[in-house]
């Protein structure tokens, strides 16, 4: 199935300028080597997927690759549960297409081992746990952006991740402990 997808796309790559059927991925700057199968690198592993262009990175991770640690809370970028790292930066995977992230290094909760995880447990920085992968990925991204210097900065910078159980103060403590 996967192979078929690639070859179908290869055939079409050269005809990018002409009208091609919906569902096709075409590389407009079609060079001879243009491969158009959707190839994602997730947690260091390559996955070749047969997905339509309309498939979001989030749905590709969850439904195609089976990495369900990344959660869908709103599918509109409004809750942060789907936060992953792309090339080390935190983003919302529901607002990007899988095909747009070819060639990037994608990191999901399944691919991290970070002191924040222990700190989240120690400070009880979650209850139901549904927003937690997104919180942790967001916090890892935040730490990479530069150490947040105060509780207030953590609060502001973590405001893209909703937590309905209300673990907010504990999340701040967990992050502050790790950020030093």
């Amino acid at each position: 199935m996967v192979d078929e997808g690639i070859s179908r796309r290869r055939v079409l790559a050269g005809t990018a300028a002409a009208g091609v059927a919906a569902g096709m991925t075409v590389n407009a700057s079609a060079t001879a080597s243009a491969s158009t199968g959707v190839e994602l690198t997730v947690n260091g592993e390559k996955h070749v997927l047969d997905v339509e262009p309309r498939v979001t990175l989030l749905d590709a991770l969850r439904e195609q690759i089976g990495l369900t640690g990344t959660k869908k809370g709103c599918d509109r970028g409004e809750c942060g549960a789907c936060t992953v790292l792309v090339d080390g930066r935190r983003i919302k995977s529901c607002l990007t297409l899988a095909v747009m992230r070819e060639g990037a290094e994608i990191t999901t909760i399944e691919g991290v081992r970070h002191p924040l995880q222990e700190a989240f447990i120690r400070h009880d920085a979650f209850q139901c746990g549904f927003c937690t992968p997104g919180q942790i990925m967001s916090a890892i991204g935040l730490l990479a952006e530069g150490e947040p210097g105060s509780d207030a900065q953590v609060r502001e910078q973590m405001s893209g991740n909703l937590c309905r159980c209300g673990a907010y103060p504990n999340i701040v403590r967990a992050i502050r402990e790790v950020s030093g």
Partner: protein
Amino acid sequence: MIIGKPLDRVDGPAKVTGAAKYAADQHIPGLTHAVLVTSAIARGKIIRIDTGQAARSPGVLSVITHHNGPRFAYQPPKHPWIYGQTHVPLQNDVIYHSGQIVAVVIADTLERARYAATLIQIDYAVETPEISVEANLDKAFIPERGPFNLRYEYRRGDAHGALATAPVRVSGRYRTSMQHHNPMEPTATTAVWDGDHLTLYETTQALAFTRQKTAEMLGVDQKQVRVVSPYLGGGFGAKGYVWPHTFITAAIARSLGRPVKLVLTRAQSYTMHGHRAETVQELSVGATRDGTITAFVHSAVSQTSMLNEVSWEEMDATTQLYACPNAELTRRVVRLNLGTPTPMRAPLSVGGYALESIMDELSHATGVNPLELRLRNYSTHNPENPSQPWGTGKFLRDCYELGAKLFDWPHRLPRPRSTRRDGGWIGVGMATAFHPTYVSAATVSIRMDADGKALVRSATQDIGTGTYTIVTQTVADALGVPAKSVRFELGDTNFAPSAPSIGSRTAASVGTAAHHAGSALKDKVIAIAVADHRSPLYGIPAAQVTAADGQLFHRLDPRRRETYADVLRRHGPVDSEAVWPAAPGISRSYGAVFAEVTVDDATGEVRVTRLVGAFDIGRVLNAKTARSQAIGGMIWGLGTALTEHTIVDEHLGRILTANLSGYLVPVEADVPDVDIAFVDKADPAASDIGAKGVGELASNGATAAIANAVCHATGRRVRDLPITPDKLL
């Protein structure tokens, strides 16, 4: 003793690594995806529904409308209880509210189902919907009590008479908004049939409800239905009852002969499983000049749907919290073209907000410090039944004391609108928290194997409240083994049946059953040991043997000992099971909440700068998880006070904020550090382990404390929630 200790959550590692599998995370071969189409209008009829294009769209397996919808074996009654609502969609052409299910598309991928759903064309005959509570007040009526026995009317003494003659009278008209639970995990159902047996991977706070009602609707035996929910991404009431999307998905999977997964979109979650109804409340209090309350008169109107009659917004705090000889409570509803309301953490909180606001107004009117005013009207007996002392069921005085100390509550409050800092007005406020908590039958089974490890099972839920952890602790203590020797599995109807996780009952009910099951197992193993001549404990009277740290030993001669594992290696596995309670029970939890706010002088933006809560929740089972739940509850109160509001278009009847950017749940930046104290005194009347509920309790109090603080800061009393900047200009 491990109980009470701040043990880290035992489900923590699964949750911080992404390993925890929630309802929508199951991998099932041959899975198909269902997407709902919902009505664009709020009232009328479908006159034509064209599914042709959708049915021909790539990947589509089935399109279902009222023409070919599943027919069910049962009709839910007009009083919602276990069934969230009466209305069963897809049975006819009538539209009762916007966002009602009118079609379902099933396809091989989510994207294809989603797109095909947009291709269905519907013509409606539109009628003018009724949307406004205020505009329909004259049609308000008192509903029947229904099987849940909700109380709509209450009277003692002569409230109106006492109010008329009271030296001090204060009245207020309070409005609270329609609100939505918005757990972070969207509601999901995955239905998998194997022959005539159904497995449902379901987002549910009540496995047993889902099993029972799905079976009833589908006309199958309960034994044919298995419900699985090991992790739940929050519920707060939205996942408490059984709603149509669940049995519709199960029915479709049966007729399609394929597993079907349905995940509600965030927008759909606003019309598929209830909401907290808007309320309009009129509350008057009469008192002597020194603040002794003589009368409460409280009347409220809230919204119900066209087919159900119910109001979950109970207001018993008015009649049960303070000593007051005369009280009257009346609750009415109006029918609107909106969905059926459902309980939302916490049903008493909007009535409690009005009560604790009028207490603040009374404090202003009498000049009695708000804290002193509450102490002055403290009830030691149930005001509804003066022969019933609260006894060990109420340590509210301790809450006031602990909270006031933590907060440094002033004996003399500065005048309203008199304290400024950095361009903002500062104010403080306080309120009492009050909520009933329940217990109902829970079963816990334990098997201990030859390795001395206990496998504990119960068909209960951990909705984020810490069930996994506190049951582990309770069983470990009852057995006298370390927590790591106990493994608790929940969330599967294959396990022994248990109570629903609604009404703050899980910890006390399941915890107590776990305690009894653990004790019973320990007794069994001791009995085996003392009867076994190979045991160092042979011949000792059982009552003189006890256990700690995995070892059984003679109380008087602790050198005579062996491990659980030693006994079981000889004897084989031992099982126990306990059910508790025999009959449902109710008790009450209390608290005192203190808040400090800053209100921007120019813009009216309110920021909560300090929040303190002191709670009497009986015995604290886990200091860490209980604290978290208390903090979380107070943040709920903050959201109700300041940000949350479902807005509905009055003409079209559509919810305009059906997302997480228009409906504002508090974000990290809204929340200050929160200080919590617990009285931590056991209430043996509530449960054998002395525990009672915390989740709902803690979401009471903060709303009024914040609103009172805003009034103190600005000198303005806003009686209409949420307190957004426009209301303070």
